[in-house]
């Protein structure tokens, strides 16, 4: 017996994924196990790699917008916005006020929808079947709202270089108001059924520790960073669009564990609701498209633009050579970089904790694999 404790047992290699319900897509990891304790993880990605960066080089600037929808497909308005704003920055296009407000309403709705999917799937990974249903029920209403703007529900694709493609239908506004009014109550419901649960708390508190120092040197961004005690949000630090006009807080938690990475999403939904309420109050009338040349031909140069995606920072680095097609588009996706901390947070814990910790990073493989 003493030998087993000091020397360990035979190492077991466990292959998880790519086809596994808890892998949130097609992520695969090879887990090294001693008994039930994780001693190492090798993440394997690329099963959903479509070569978007290569595709971008043979498309015009406007033609690439629909591809960005397929990055983080749970929050497609964010990706559209990041790309369009990058090109606008490069060309020096001013976007009309109304379009800016509409963009922010759509982006924050997408943040709420993305966090709802996160809550649902994180609960499901810990066998919380009931908690799965509630957020998805309310997410339907956000998808309906998207449908009233662009006609599609998941890959919204309503942003264009210089503005937004469609004016929302008249029924959009009352539907949005009633959604905003209902949401705080629903949020409490999610909390009570998921994080308020004693079993869930016991499984997530003090598990999957990612310290502040480690998070910084591993380039972690987004909610995972803020749950490790760093109050940093691009919307505040380097406001893009018109985010500097809104009054909202950047939630921060100091627990560094899986529980805090879950809780911070609830707090962010609250802040998003605040932003949308202000945007609905202040939105002006006016045009929704700027005057943009028919052929989009940015000057020679390069631009880097980053936005706060629901899952991390999304950055577009575009190099233009003065033609209608970009020379290089580099996509910096938040979860791709965030996945590096898997070894940090899961080694030394049990296999079932690994599932909960991985869920707390909220990886979407469309964004990881590009």
């Amino acid at each position, binding site marked *: 017996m003493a030998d087993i404790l000091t020397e360990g047992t035979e190492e077991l290699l466990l292959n998880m994924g790519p086809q596994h319900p808890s892998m949130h897509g097609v992520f695969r990891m090879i887990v090294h196990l001693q008994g039930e304790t994780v001693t190492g993880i090798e993440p394997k990605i690329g099963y959903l790699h479509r070569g978007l960066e290569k595709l971008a080089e043979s498309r015009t600037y406007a033609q690439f917008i629909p591809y960005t929808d397929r990055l983080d497909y749970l929050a497609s308005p964010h990706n559209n916005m990041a790309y369009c704003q990058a090109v606008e920055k490069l060309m020096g296009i001013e976007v009309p006020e109304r379009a800016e407000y509409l963009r922010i309403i759509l982006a924050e709705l997408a943040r709420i929808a993305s966090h709802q999917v996160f809550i649902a799937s994180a609960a499901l990974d810990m066998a919380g079947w009931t908690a799965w249903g509630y957020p998805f029920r309310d997410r339907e209403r956000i998808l309906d709202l998207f449908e009233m703007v662009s006609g599609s529900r998941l890959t919204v694709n309503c942003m264009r270089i210089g503005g937004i493609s469609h004016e929302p239908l008249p029924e959009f506004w009352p539907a949005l108001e009633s959604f905003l009014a209902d949401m705080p109550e629903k949020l409490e419901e999610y909390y009570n059924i998921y994080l308020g649960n004693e079993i869930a708390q016991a499984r997530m508190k003090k598990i999957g520790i990612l310290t502040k120092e480690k998070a910084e040197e591993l380039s972690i961004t987004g909610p995972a960073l803020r749950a490790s005690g760093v109050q940093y949000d691009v919307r505040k630090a380097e406001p893009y669009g018109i985010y500097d006009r809104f009054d909202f807080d950047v939630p921060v938690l100091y627990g560094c564990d899986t529980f805090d990475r879950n809780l911070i999403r609830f707090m962010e939904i609250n802040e998003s609701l605040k932003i949308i309420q202000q945007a609905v109050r202040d939105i002006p009338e006016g045009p929704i498209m700027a005057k943009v040349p028919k052929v989009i031909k940015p000057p020679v140069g390069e631009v880097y633009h980053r936005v706060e995606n629901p899952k991390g920072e999304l950055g577009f680095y575009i190099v233009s050579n003065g033609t209608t097609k970009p020379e290089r588009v580099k996509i*910096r996706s938040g979860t791709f970089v965030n996945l590096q901390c898997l070894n940090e947070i899961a080694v030394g814990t049990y296999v079932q904790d690994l599932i909960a910790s991985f869920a707390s990073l909220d990886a979407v493989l469309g964004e990881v694999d590009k």
Partner: protein
Amino acid sequence: MGNKEVLRKNVEELASRVNGTVEEMLDYLVLTVKAPYITETLTAAKNFKETPCDFLHDIAGVDKMDHFEVVYHLTSLRGPQKLRVKAIVDRENPVIDSVTRIWPGANFMEREAYDMFGIQFKGHPNLKRIYLWDDFEGFPLRKDYVTEPPEVRNIMRVRRADE
């Protein structure tokens, strides 16, 4: 002195030490250096006085036909400073020092640049392909990469010979 001026002074001082050039592109300060100086440059940028650029945001490879560029985007969690550092890498022999010792978070980013451009990062703990499978031939984001699969490529070559 505002943050931007201090950063500019710091960057210019550093540029004279590492034979680099400084220019401004839109809202970014851009420091271009030769590949051998990259470790020195980034270590110094991380420890700038008053404006430390201590958060590695992104690493991108760019194919400029006669050379490669490795582009580092640095920011900070404690201030508005941001800096773009470009390293010029030889195209025939693309080797550059890995920065995983300065930022362990460079691991995946450098693997991606290796996967797409074949840039060798010296000192990287695990330099393997990350998106593509291990026996994939060629480096797809290089400008001279032929996108057709080999069998199609061969047919095209035969046709071209006939015509």
